[in-house]
Structures are given as C-alpha cells and as structure tokens.
C-alpha cells in the first residue's frame, strides 16, 4: 500500500507541476467559451445584408408604407423604384441593388400572389431571404388591414396568441433550457476528460515501457501496483483540474452576487442564480465526480493495457486504441438524443450500460433526480459502472503484466485477449 501511495504521488506531482497542466487548466475553459461565443459572433457577422428594389405594377405598395417598414430594420432594405422592368433588369446592380422584385398588375389586396420572384445574380444561403420575405408579408398585411378597415387597436387584438409553458408539478423549479445547457456541458466535459486523460495514461505506460524503467520498477513492486498507481495518480490530476474549475465558477458566482444591480451585471446574476435554483448543483457536481472517476477507471485501464502492448510507434497506439476511442465517441453520439428526450428508452439504457453511462447519465441528471432519472436508474447505473471498471481493471492488469516486458512486434487484440485469459 505504501508503494502504491509513492507511485500515485509521483504520477500526480510530476503532472501537476508541469506548465502544460497550469496552462491547460486556465486555457481550456477560455478556449471552450471562445469556441461557443466565437462561432456565434462569426455567424452574426456573416449575415447577408440585402438591398432589394421593388417595382410595383399593382399600385398597392406606397412609398410611405415601405419607409415605415424599413424604419425598423435597416440591414435588409426594400426600396420602391419607378422604372420599367426592362430597364431595372439591366441596371439593378449598377444602382447598388442585390436584386429586384416585380409586383405584377394582377396582384390584388385580397388574393395577393402565391409567390414573387427575387431576380438576382448572386446565390444566397437558405435563410438569407427570410427578412425580405417577412417585410413583404408585413406590407401586404397592412394593405389588407387598411382595405378591411381594421385599425391598429383591432389588429393588436387579432394578432394576440397563446404561449404553452411547462408546469412540472413534481419539481417546481425545473427548467428544461438550463438543464439542456448543463447536460451538454457535463457530457462534453466528461468526454474531453475521458479522452484526454485516458490517452495520458496510455502514453505514460508506453513511456515507461520504452524507456525500460518498467523492468526496474517491477523488480520492486508488482506490475498491478505500478498500473493502478499510475491510473489513480492521473485520475487525481483530472479531479484536481475539475475542482479548480468548480472553484472558479463558485468565485464568479459570489463575485457577481455582490457586485449588485447595474445593468448587465444584474442580468448575469439573475441568470446564474436561476441556474442554482433550477438545478440541484451539489447533486450534479457529486455525480459528476463519481462518474468522472469511475468512467476514468473504466476507460483508462483499457488504455493502460494498450499502452503496455505497443512499442515506440505511435501509429500502433492509434490503431489499437481505435475501438476504445470509438466507444467514447459513440457515447457522445448517444448524448444528443438523450438530452432532447431524457426519458426515452435510448437515454435510459445508454445511461445504465457501463461504457456509455458516464457521458449519457451526466447529460440526464441535470433534468432532475428523481423525476427524470429515478433513483433506481441512478443506483443501477452506478453499481454497473463500478462492476464494469473492476472488470476492465482486472482484464487490463493481465494484459499489462505480459505486455510491459514484451518487446518486438505489436500484438493484435486477439493475442492480447489471449494474454488476459491465460492462467
């Protein structure tokens, strides 16, 4: 036991003291946020800005009507042009228009037209024409309203509609929107940690094997102790990183709480407090730590087995670890349907079966325990995951003790399984 502690200590300290750990701990959340906001920002910036000429042969579209519609939204504008269709066809681009629409003579206020053509020389994305379409329909609505003699007050009555909202009687604070976000964040975080630290275990084992230190160490400790010490040590690193992030979130929460009521800050505070009231944060964090460690043990022992089987060549590592990596990627693929319907059979089974449960169960838990996830499912999932990692650790240890001293050709999965089940 003392020796395992020594190994854990070494694995933990050498990693935590590295610059890459400190940078990774700070940079990863920043990169993650940057990715989310960056893509949003870019999508916003690259929106089409269309300028469309309107030639009205029906006489219904008046200048002041168009002006009042354009007044609200200056990005996509429509302008009434009083030239002949032949002339606009040849000159619309030199006049600074992206395209033109001809409203035909037979366009009446009652029937309108099934469709109008935007004549252009450009190609547009799917949603690019939506704002223009909206404006033309808005104008037609006004024309219809005026013709029917409906005033603004009556129109307001007509345009009223009803919103449907969820009232979960069992859980008053449930908020599907926030649960979805937390579900996604937890699932992806789990995914990154499993892949990142799993491959760290694999590379650590390979490094010990190829630098031949393994033979020196296993003359003092059992191969199993070396393997489990490495796995626990690296698991502690992952846990430390996660706890640092949690601490940062708590600091941000408390800081935003005290900085009071001015403008944007109060909105932020409101939102953050909403998160804390609608989701059982201690339960989510507690479960996350459990699934982080158990899932990590489940996968990293398999990665350790692969690390012990390969030699210097990193390509060998890729081809051998492919099935394991696929399991993790498959889990993340199951997460999306599980979040959109957290009570569906796919979600339930994927969150109980050990290989996908760390990611899928973490995506479901924010929707509420025991309403969305009954206690028995959570319990069964945890028990099976513990049983699962005990099996993979046993299995991996048997491959490891042979692989770590075996040099030469890369074994196949078939040979490795043979090592595992030999007496």
């Amino acid at each position: 036991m003392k020796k395992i502690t020594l190994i854990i200590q070494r694995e933990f300290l050498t990693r935590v003291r590295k610059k890459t750990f400190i940078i990774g701990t700070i940079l990863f959340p920043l990169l993650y946020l940057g990715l989310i906001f960056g893509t949003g920002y870019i999508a916003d910036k690259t929106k089409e800005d269309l300028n469309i000429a309107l030639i009205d042969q029906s006489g219904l579209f008046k200048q002041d009507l168009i002006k009042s519609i354009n007044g609200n939204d200056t990005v996509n504008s429509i302008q009434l042009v009083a030239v002949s269709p032949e002339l606009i066809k040849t000159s619309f681009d030199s006049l600074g228009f992206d395209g033109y629409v001809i409203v035909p003579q037979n366009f009446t206020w009652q029937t309108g037209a099934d469709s109008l053509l935007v004549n252009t020389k450009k190609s547009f994305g799917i949603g690019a024409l939506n704002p223009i379409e909206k404006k033309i329909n808005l104008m037609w609505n006004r024309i219809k309203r005026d013709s029917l003699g409906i005033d603004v007050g009556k129109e307001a009555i007509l345009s009223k509609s009803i919103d449907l909202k969820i009232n979960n009687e069992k859980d008053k604070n449930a908020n599907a929107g926030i649960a979805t976000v937390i579900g996604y964040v937890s699932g992806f975080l789990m995914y990154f940690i499993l892949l990142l630290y799993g491959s760290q275990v694999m590379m650590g084992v390979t490094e010990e094997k190829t630098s031949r230190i393994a033979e020196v160490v296993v003359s003092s400790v059992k191969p199993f102790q070396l393997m489990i010490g490495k796995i626990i040590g690296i698991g502690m690193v992952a846990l430390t990183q996660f706890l640092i992030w949690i601490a940062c979130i708590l600091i941000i929460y408390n800081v935003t709480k005290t900085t009071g009521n001015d403008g944007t800050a109060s909105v932020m505070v409101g939102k953050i407090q909403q998160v804390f009231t609608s989701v059982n944060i201690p339960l989510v964090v507690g479960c996350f730590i459990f699934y982080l460690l158990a899932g990590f043990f489940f996968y990293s022992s398999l990665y350790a087995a692969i690390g012990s089987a390969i030699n210097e060549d990193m390509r060998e590592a890729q081809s051998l670890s492919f099935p394991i990596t696929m399991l993790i990627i498959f889990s993340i693929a199951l997460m999306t349907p599980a979040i959109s319907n957290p009570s569906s059979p796919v979600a339930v089974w994927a969150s109980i079966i050990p290989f996908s449960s760390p990611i899928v169960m973490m995506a479901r838990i924010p929707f509420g325990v025991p309403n969305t996830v009954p206690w028995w499912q959570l319990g069964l999932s945890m028990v099976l995951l513990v049983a699962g990692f005990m099996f993979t650790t046993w299995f991996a240890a048997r491959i490891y003790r042979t692989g770590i001293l075996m040099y030469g050709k890369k074994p196949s999965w078939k040979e490795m399984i043979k090592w595992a089940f030999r007496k």
Partner: protein
Amino acid sequence: MNILELHNLKKYFATQKAVDDISMSIPKGSIFGLLGPNGAGKTTLIRMITGIFYPDAGDIILKGKKFDPENDAKYIGYMPEERGLYKKMKIGEQALYLAQLKGLSKHDAMHKIKEWFKRLEMESWWNKKVEDLSKGMGQKLQFVITVLHEPDLIILDEPFSGLDPINANLIKDEIYRLAQNGTTIIFSTHRMEQVEEICNNIVLVNKGQKILDGTVQNVKQDFKENLFSIQLENTPAAISSNAFDIVTVNKQELIVKINEGFKANDVLGYFMNNGSNIVSFKELLPSLNDIFIKLVEGTPTARQFQKVTE
C-alpha cells in the same frame, strides 16, 4: 551458507522452454557469473529471481526462506541489461523515488544517495535530468540506483557495456568493495575475460538448462587438455618421446600435450637429458572463452521455436 538456492526451476512460454529445470546454489559473499549464449534463458532466470516472473515450477530460497517477491524486494538490487530511467525526471528525485520503492524511508534514502553521489563524484547531477546525461553517465547512475538500498543480493546484467575503461574500473572496484562487505553479486554476461577476472563461481546455461557449475579454477581444471608451454634456449631439431606429443612449434616456444600416465617432470626430464636449456615451463589452462565456445558450439546459434507440451 548459501544466500540463494534454486530448486528445479521451470518457466515455459508458449513457444519456448525458457528455463527448463535449473537448480543451483549461490554462496553468500561470492561474485557469481551467470553465463550463456543469447537466448539461453539467463534473463528469464533473473526475472524469476527478482520476482518479476513467477516460476511455473520449482522453489526459490532466499536467505534460507522461501522467496516472497512482495516483501523481499528490498534484499535484491537488479540492473537490467536494457537500462531504464525516467528521462524527464530530475536525477536526485528519481534516485529518491526508486530507493523508497525498495522500502527505504525518505530520510535513509536521502542519506545514502548523498553518500554514494559524493563517493562517485556525482553531486552536481542532482537537479539534472537523465536526458542530459551521456550514456556512460547514465550507466553509472543506474549502478548507484541498483546498489543504493544496500541489498544482500545484487544482480548485474552486462554492467560494463558502454563504459569507458576508467569508469569500468570504478564500477569494478565498487563491486569488489561490496563483495568484501558480504554482498553477493550475480553477474550475467557473455564477456568471458571479465568473468575470469572478477568471478569466483560460474554457472553456464544453454537452451534453458544448466550445463556447467563450479568455481572458475575447478572448471578450468576440468577442461584442461594437459597442454604445457615450454621455452628453450635452442630448440632441438628432432624431438620424440612417448611421454608427450608436440602440438605446435614456434621459434622460441613449444606447446606439448602430455600423454596419459605421464607427468610434467617426464617432459622436463626429457629436455634436460637432451641438454636443452629450459627458460620457462608452464601449464596451459583453457580460457573460459574456449570452454564456452567448446560447450556451446555445435548447438544452433539461434534458439529454435519449439512446441511446448505440458
């Protein structure tokens, strides 16, 4: 008293009887040579002694008790042929870590490392990394790490490969010093001249079996061919005696083989009666190298894969 006894040790792999029924005893305080061609099973044998492999059959008795790898690791120091250290770890921390894994307390380990580093002039290495060391320096460090916890049994696999003569002598002196203090050293190599120089006892293994066991002197006596070298002031033109046969004739030196039933005195008598002046006379003992080649030769140079049934 024997520090280590092996009784009918066996280890079979899927395609190879790596160690096939080997027994031997190693007396305390001896420098013991474990010899054998490549693939003879030396490394497998050593791995069983160090607790890395469990034997399929047979017993290992260390210090009079059945060997228990978990708790007896501290009595053994092992330097594998392929040297291994953490490349990115600081040398001082690494030595400390490996000594603690052997069961030393942090305080004791620190004390001993400082002592050894001082003796071998390695004090300035403490904060360096292994990747900064030359091959020979790495070798020296590996040796220190092997012997640091003062084990009763030290197993060195090719300890001099890659060392220059000065550092090789340094290590050699340390080996003698350790042996004088009662440490037993098993020395695995196929460099015969080193074995002859250093070892008291040897065992030769081939194809997983022990084929020779004894002190260096006895082994040489057993394999001597009654060859003698004689230097004469002037070699007579014709020599003929039924006491011996001439093997080779050089300018100054004759090599003769004494026949069955005759003694060295018969040879000397013949030349004295002949009136030749004898300058020197000595027995030619075979070198371990000759014995090794004689015993191992004829067996295929590379071990063949075989079917293991059992």
